[in-house]
């Protein structure tokens, strides 16, 4: 049996998905394009961001959209010391659960901070809007720490 060469090749398997947003997520994304974060009111009165289509308790369709602030507070966070290629930042950053003013539940996004020690639970943050907003979650180019 002849010795074989070691053959090695990189390849990429890609799927060109497009997704229909539906009216609720569509409204959220349209809001982002307008630099406005939109939530929805659930049957118990809580404002949920991003908006969900059906009530978590009654399963009724939801429709009462509520504008919320682009400022809020960090509820919890995780520091990413070595960002990977797919991450939103090439610099170390924090994934964070952020409760926006006017919302009752936090949403996940990322926070710009120079150092892990700059961020804590309760930190106030404000959305930094992308130079060009297109109607996608990356229209928020991360949150920035404010007022400390």
């Amino acid at each position, binding site marked *: *049996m002849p010795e*074989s060469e070691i053959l090695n090749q990189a390849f*990429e398997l890609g799927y060109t*998905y497009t997704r229909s947003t539906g009216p609720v997520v*569509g409204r959220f994304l349209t809001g982002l*394009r307008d630099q406005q974060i939109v939530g929805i009111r659930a049957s118990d009165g809580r404002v949920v961001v991003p908006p969900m289509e059906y009530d978590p308790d009654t399963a009724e369709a939801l429709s009462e959209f509520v504008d919320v602030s682009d400022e809020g507070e960090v509820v919890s966070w995780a520091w990413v010391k070595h960002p990977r290629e797919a991450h939103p930042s090439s610099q170390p950053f924090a994934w964070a659960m952020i409760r926006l003013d006017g919302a009752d539940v936090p949403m996940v996004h990322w926070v710009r901070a120079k150092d892990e020690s700059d961020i804590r639970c309760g930190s106030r943050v404000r959305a930094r809007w992308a130079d060009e907003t297109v109607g996608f979650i990356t229209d928020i180019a991360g949150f920035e720490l404010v007022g400390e």
Partner: protein
Amino acid sequence: MSDQREPITGIDVPISLKYNFTAGAGPARFLSQVRKGVLTGQRCPRCEQVYIPPRGSCAACGVPTEEEVVLADKATVQSFTIVSIPIPTNPIEPPYIIANLVADGANISFIHLMSDCVNEEVRIGQRVQAVWKPEEEWDYAMDNIRYFTPIDEPDVPADKIGKLPVSGWGA
């Protein structure tokens, strides 16, 4: 200023997976031969089935397959499908045919394209032969063969498909 643009109803969310594929010893020997324009299978020492592309072992018997067998570039259609819908990122224009082909001397099929044929006349048992790229374009890949095209030989009966010797059939 109010925004006059249409509401968002859809988003593009492509996903890609980046792989680094290392061929094992069996496939690497096969690909080294393909680079020279030769199709090489491997025979199982126990059940004597010839596999192409070889994986280096027999899946049925669980033993290494070390004997190499040079195969013909003639083959028989074992099954096929006519693709009518374009596949994103695939440059081939529909309608085209993807077929499971069994090379003469092999006992298992591989997948390749058929062309230079009347799609409606493609059938199980049909005889085909490889159309190779120019030699200077050969690489470690089965697409050194552009496609398989029908040849003027009698059809192989269903019970003989995958059981032909390397010397072929008919003509």
